[in-house]
């Protein structure tokens, strides 16, 4: 039972991350490779505050989100001036820089040794110490992320994002400050990712930089694309598939070393098959064309 609840926690967090990223990839047509870094920023900020300053859980969580907003605004103002392709490269750079900080700032993050003894949270006197408590929290996070993302994307704000995705010049000629829209959605997406990171840190009580590598960013991108970008439940389904699917391989009774490699092979094969037969993703309606993200 604990095992199933653990899967639910992990899936819940990834669903939230994928939904946050879909705001950028699916709705705005911007590929961010920095989402693991923002996720890590939330995890480290929240963990450090709790460990060193003993701040309450919710305060640490919000602090992580605020820091992510600040950083994404700062980067967005510069990188979002450039083309969508340059944005992908810029966020890749940001991912690398943040990872290096997590990995090398020994005094603060303890580098590769990781931060341990992160306190389990207490919300309004309740402390979800159990797996059950955490799985409820993770699902709540996923639901909140979903509600926020769908409110934003179905509003006139979201309509402008879709216009930017398809024809930024046209959106501009309609009098929209496309730069402002892109910065805003980048900050929203980063904040949602950071909150996921905070929950993760307090759940596992130990974090190290390997959870926040560029491969982790790529994994979240894959979730969005496999599930179907810019569709209602696509990102969530993609996240659940990519969390649950590898776990199922464990039941095949293969030796651990084989299972780990097989997982990589199947995962790669799955992505290739999808790109050939269903480029819009499992639930998506929006097709990624060869020349980048376009209509």
């Amino acid at each position, binding site marked *: 039972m604990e095992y199933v609840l653990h899967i639910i926690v992990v899936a819940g967090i990834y669903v939230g991350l994928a939904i946050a990223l879909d705001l950028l990839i699916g709705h705005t047509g911007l590929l961010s490779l920095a989402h693991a870094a923002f996720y890590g920023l939330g995890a480290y900020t929240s963990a450090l505050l709790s460990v060193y300053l003993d701040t309450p859980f919710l305060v640490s969580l919000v602090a992580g989100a605020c820091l992510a907003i600040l950083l994404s605004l700062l980067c967005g103002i510069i990188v979002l001036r450039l083309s969508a392709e340059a944005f992908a490269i810029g966020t890749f750079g940001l991912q690398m820089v943040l990872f290096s900080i997590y990995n090398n700032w020994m005094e603060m993050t303890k580098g590769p040794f990781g931060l341990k003894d992160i306190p389990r949270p207490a919300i309004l006197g309740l402390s979800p110490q159990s797996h059950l408590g955490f799985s409820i929290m993770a699902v709540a996070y996923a639901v909140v992320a979903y509600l926020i993302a769908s409110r934003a994307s179905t*509003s006139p704000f979201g309509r402008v994002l879709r216009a930017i995705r398809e024809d930024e010049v046209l959106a*501009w000629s309609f009098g*929209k400050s*496309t730069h402002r829209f892109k910065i805003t959605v980048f900050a929203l997406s980063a904040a949602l990712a950071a909150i996921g990171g905070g929950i993760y840190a307090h759940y596992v009580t130990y974090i190290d930089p390997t959870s926040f590598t560029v491969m982790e960013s790529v994994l979240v991108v894959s979730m969005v694309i496999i599930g179907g970008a810019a569709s209602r439940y696509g990102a969530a389904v993609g996240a659940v598939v990519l969390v649950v699917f590898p776990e199922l391989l464990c039941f095949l009774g293969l030796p651990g070393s084989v299972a780990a490699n097989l997982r990589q092979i199947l995962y790669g094969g799955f992505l290739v098959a999808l790109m050939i037969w269903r480029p819009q993703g499992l639930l998506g309606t929006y097709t990624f064309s060869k020349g980048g993200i376009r209509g």
Partner: protein
Amino acid sequence: MTDTLLEICGLNKSFEGVNALCGFSCSMKRGEILGLIGPNGAGKTTLFNVITGFIEPEDGEVILKGVNLTNSAPHRIAKLGVARTFQDVRLVRQVSVVDNVLLSFRAQLGEKLGNVFFHWSKSQKCERENFKVAMSLLEKTGLYEESNELANDLSYGQQKLLSLVCCLAADAEILLLDEPVAGTAPAMIEQILSIIRDLPKQDKSVIVIEHNLEAISRICDRAIFMDAGAKISEGTPEEVHNDPKIIEAYLD
């Protein structure tokens, strides 16, 4: 003169040595329909791009109602009351027809993320009002039935019409129309021309680029013939049409 709406003085712009605009000047009055004709590469579209801020001129000024627009960003110029269409019909193709019209409304509460979350009912109210206006515009122009279709699924003529409707929704004072009837069927040409002809009654002014000289002479008060980035001839459509300099330019 007080009713001068737009004043363009001495615009210069060259692309890799080719002069697209060469000291181009003109002015237009409120409520006027101005036709812009000339061979391909005469700089007509470049002029539109300079007015709307997509291209910075090397020299010269664009002044709208006494406000200098030169070097302003396109979205600021659009908000000051300039709307445009593009020669290669540009629409947000994977969203519905009515959403395309809604996108071109300038003042929308729901476009600020803060309002979406903290003033939801107010921004929804604004959205509903805009929706009504958009639907009535579509009704008037005969696109009502298609309002929920994807813009991409419209016929070419309907797409041209839709991009014009988007300009109407923008509540702009000046509409810059780049070949609004090129490549459309005769019935659609009639419809689009009659919409354009009615614009001065709604206190809107128009600059229209068109190769269809008959269309120009039917809707325009005044025409300018451009070649190699400069104004060759100016006057009523008939005067311009019969100007010997134009025959010379086309024969060159």
